[in-house]
C-alpha cells in the first residue's frame, strides 16, 4: 500500500498508460497486450513507463523488462519517423533481399547496431517473414508493402520521402517562423 501515493502521483503523467492498464484490469497475465498497447501509443517502450507498469501490476520490474526484451516486437529505443522494414524470410533471402538492405543502409548511413538516422527521420530494420513470399523480396515502408523490390527502387522510395520531408520542413519554417526562432 505504501506505493499508492507514488502511483497516483505518476498517474497524471501517464494518463494514457493508466487507461491501457485499466483496460486490462491491471492483470499481470495481460502484460504482453499491455506492452503492445503502450508501444502503439509511444512507438516504443520508454524505461520509466515500464517501471510504472511493473508497480501497477505489482510484479518485479525484472519481469516486465524480461518480457519486453524477449520479444522482437518490443523496442526499447525510439524509432525514426519513417520505419523501413526489410523482410529477411527465406523466400526474400534467396531472391536477394540483402543487397536491398545494404543499399538502404548505405543511403541512410545506418547499420546493424545503429538502426535509426541521427535526424530521427528513418529507421531501417530487418524483420522475420512477413508472409508475402509470393512477392519476394519485400519491404515495408510505413506499413505500406512493396513487393519485388530492387535496391534502386528502394533508394528511390527513400528519395521520395526525403523530398516530402524537405517540403514539409520548408513549409513549417515559413508558416511558423516564431517557433523556429525560439528553437534556435
Amino acid at each position, binding site marked *: 500500500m505504501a506505493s499508492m501515493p507514488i502511483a497516483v502521483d505518476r498517474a497524471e503523467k501517464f494518463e494514457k498508460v493508466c487507461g491501457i492498464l485499466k483496460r486490462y484490469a491491471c*492483470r*499481470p*497475465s*495481460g*502484460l*504482453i*497486450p499491455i*506492452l*503492445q498497447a503502450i508501444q502503439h501509443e509511444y512507438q516504443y517502450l520508454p524505461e520509466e513507463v515500464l517501471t510504472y507498469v511493473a508497480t501497477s501490476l505489482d510484479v518485479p520490474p525484472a519481469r516486465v523488462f*524480461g*518480457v519486453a526484451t*524477449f*520479444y*522482437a*516486437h*518490443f523496442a526499447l529505443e525510439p524509432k525514426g519517423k519513417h520505419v523501413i522494414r526489410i523482410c*529477411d*524470410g*527465406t*523466400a526474400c*533471402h*534467396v*531472391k*536477394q533481399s540483402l543487397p536491398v538492405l545494404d543499399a538502404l543502409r548505405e543511403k541512410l548511413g545506418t547499420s546493424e547496431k545503429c538502426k535509426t538516422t541521427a535526424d530521427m527521420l528513418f529507421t531501417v530494420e530487418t*524483420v*522475420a*517473414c*512477413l*508472409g*508475402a*513470399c*509470393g*512477392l*519476394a523480396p*519485400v519491404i515495408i515502408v510505413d*506499413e*505500406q*508493402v*512493396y*513487393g519485388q523490390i530492387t535496391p534502386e527502387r528502394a533508394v528511390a522510395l527513400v528519395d521520395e520521402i526525403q523530398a516530402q520531408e524537405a517540403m514539409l520542413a520548408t513549409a513549417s519554417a515559413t508558416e511558423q517562423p516564431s517557433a523556429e526562432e525560439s528553437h534556435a
Partner: protein
Amino acid sequence: MPNAEPLTSVSGHVNGSSTLAQVRRVIICAGTGCMANGAMKVFEQFKSEIASSGLRVILELRAEATSDEIRLSKSGCQGFCQMGPLVSVVPDGILYTKVRSEDVAEIVQQTLAGDQVVERLLYKDPSTRKSCRGLEDNPFYSRQDRLVLRECGFLDPEDIREYILHGGYQAARKAFVEMSPEEICKKITDSGLRGRGGGGFPTGRKWDAARIQNSAKKYVICNGDEGDPGAFMNRSVMEGNPHSVIEGMMIAARAIGANEMLVYVRAEYPLAVERMRRAVADAEREGILGKNVFGTGLAVKCEVMEGAGAFVCGEETAMIASIEGQRGMPRPKPPFPAQSGLWGKPTIINNVETLAHVSRILNVGPEVFRSIGTKDSPGTKTFALTGHVSNTGLVEVPFGTTLREIVYNIGGGVTDDAGKIWKTGFKAVQIGGPSGGCLTEDHLDLPLAYESLRSVGAMVGSGGLVAMNQGTCMVSIARFFMEFTQRESCGKCVLCREGTRQLLALLDDVIEGQADANTLDLLEKLGHAVQVGSLCGLGKTAPNPVLSTLRYFRKEYEEHIFEKRCRTGRCKALLSPEINEVKCKGCGLCIKACPTQAITGEKKQPHHINPELCIKCGACATACKIQAIEGI
C-alpha cells in the same frame, strides 16, 4: 432454440450455395500480396465503373438477389500472389491477373457488359505460351486439390453471411446438437487427420487426451504463430476464411468440453489479426459464439491475441507461457498441455490449417477425407512454394504428391535470378523452413508425406517449400537458417543457446575460408549434440539444415574448405578476382574505382590486382566496360 435462428434466417428459405453460384460475381483478391499491389484501388475502380456503365452492382449479399445484378466482392488470398492483383469473374470462370485500375473499364465493358474475354489480362503459361482463361486450364490451379484454400478465393472473409450461406457452421451445429464429444473425437481419429503445423501428431488422439481429463475448465488454442520464414498458408486461411478456423475451434471445444478459445496470431500479420477479430465479433453477433451455443445451453467464447515476435512461441508450451504474460520459453513435457496447459488446465493447441480441415471432415465423413492422400498421411497439405520457380504461391495438394509435380508442373519450372525459365537450373528445395532439410534432384520423385520426408532427413514442417537454382550456395543457405535459429533460440537449454552460436561460427569459418579438415566433423558432432540436448522442437530441429546440406552437398562444403572456392561466387571472401590480360586494354577505369589501391598497371598495358590489398568489393568489375575482370 433462439440461437440457432440466425443460421436459418440466412440459409433457411433459400438454398445457400445455389444462390451464391447463380449471382454473377466479380471477386477481387484482397490478400496481403494483392493489397500490396493495389487491389483496393482496383476494387474502388470497379465500383464506380460498374455503376457508371448502367449495370446494377450490389456490395451486400442478399438472399433475394436477381440475375441481372453483379455482386462485387473481396476475397481472401487466392494463392497466386506473384500474379496479383487477381480478379475473377464467376460463374464465367475467368481469372484476370496483374489487373491495374486502368484495366477496369475494359473488363467492365468487354466482360461484364459484352461477355467477351480481355485476352491480354489472362495468365500466360510460360512453358507453353498459352493463355489460360480461368482456373481449369491454368496449370498452377488445375493440378491442385484445393479443399482448404478454395473458399479463401471465393467467399468474402468479412461477411459471415456468405460463409453461412455456403454451408458454414453446419458442422459446428451438428457437433453441438447431434453428436457426443466421444463421437466427434472418433470421427477425427478415424479420418487420420494429423497436425499440419509440423509435428504431424494425430489430431483425434490429442483431442481424446484432453477430453478424458476431469476438469471444469478447458481451453482450445489455435496456433496462428506461423513463424517459419517462407510459409504463409496460415496467414492466407486466417485472412481468407477466418470462420472456417473458428468453426474448427468450436468443434474442438465441443469435443473436449472447453468453453474458452483463443487464437494466437503472429503480429507480423496485421490483416489476419483484423479479420480474425472481425470474424469473432460477427460470430458473437449472430449468436454462433456466446452463452447458449445452438440452443444447447453450452457457452463458448473466443479471444484473439497478437503475438509479439518470437519464433519459439510456435512451440506449444512456449505459446502457453506467452499467453500467460511470460517470456515465451518452453517447459518439459509431460505433462502435456492436454493434461495441464494454459493456467494448469487441460488445453489443446491446433494449427490453423488443421482446424480448417475439421468442419469438412464432419460434413463429408472420415472416409471421403481419407480418400485422398496416403494411408499414413491422409488428406491434403498446403505448401508455400517460393524461391526460384516461375509460379510462386500457395499450393494445396494431396499428401503423396511428388516434388517434381509441384516444382515443374504447378510451379512451372525453375528460374534464374532474372525470373526466366532455366531448364537445367534445379539444385535443391528447402522444405519445412529452419527446422527442415533440403531435398535434391534425387528426391524429385519422392512422394511427399510425413514418414517419407523423415526418412530422408527432412520434414513436412509448416510446409514452406523454397526452390533454389544452381546459383544458390548451399553453405550460405545453411548459414542463413542457422543465423535465424540462433537468433530465435530462447536461451533455456545450453546446447541450443551455445550450440547454435558455435554452429554459426563454424559455418562462418567455412564461408570465409578459415575452416580446416576438422570443421566438417565438428559441425556434424555438434549438430547431433544440439539435437539430443535441447528440450523443444526449435533446438531439436535447429541443426537440420546444416546436417542435411552436409549430407547432400558435402562436396560444396569441401570445395569451400580445401579449394577455397565457392562455385556460385556468392561467398565473397573466397573470390579471387583476376584481370584477363588478353582482354584488358589498360584504360585505368578499374584503378580509379578501386578503394584500396590494389590495382596497378601502366596505361594501355594489362593491369594487375594485388591479392594482399584486394578486399573483393567488386568495384573494379562494375567499372570495367569490357568485362576483363574475372572471378568476381
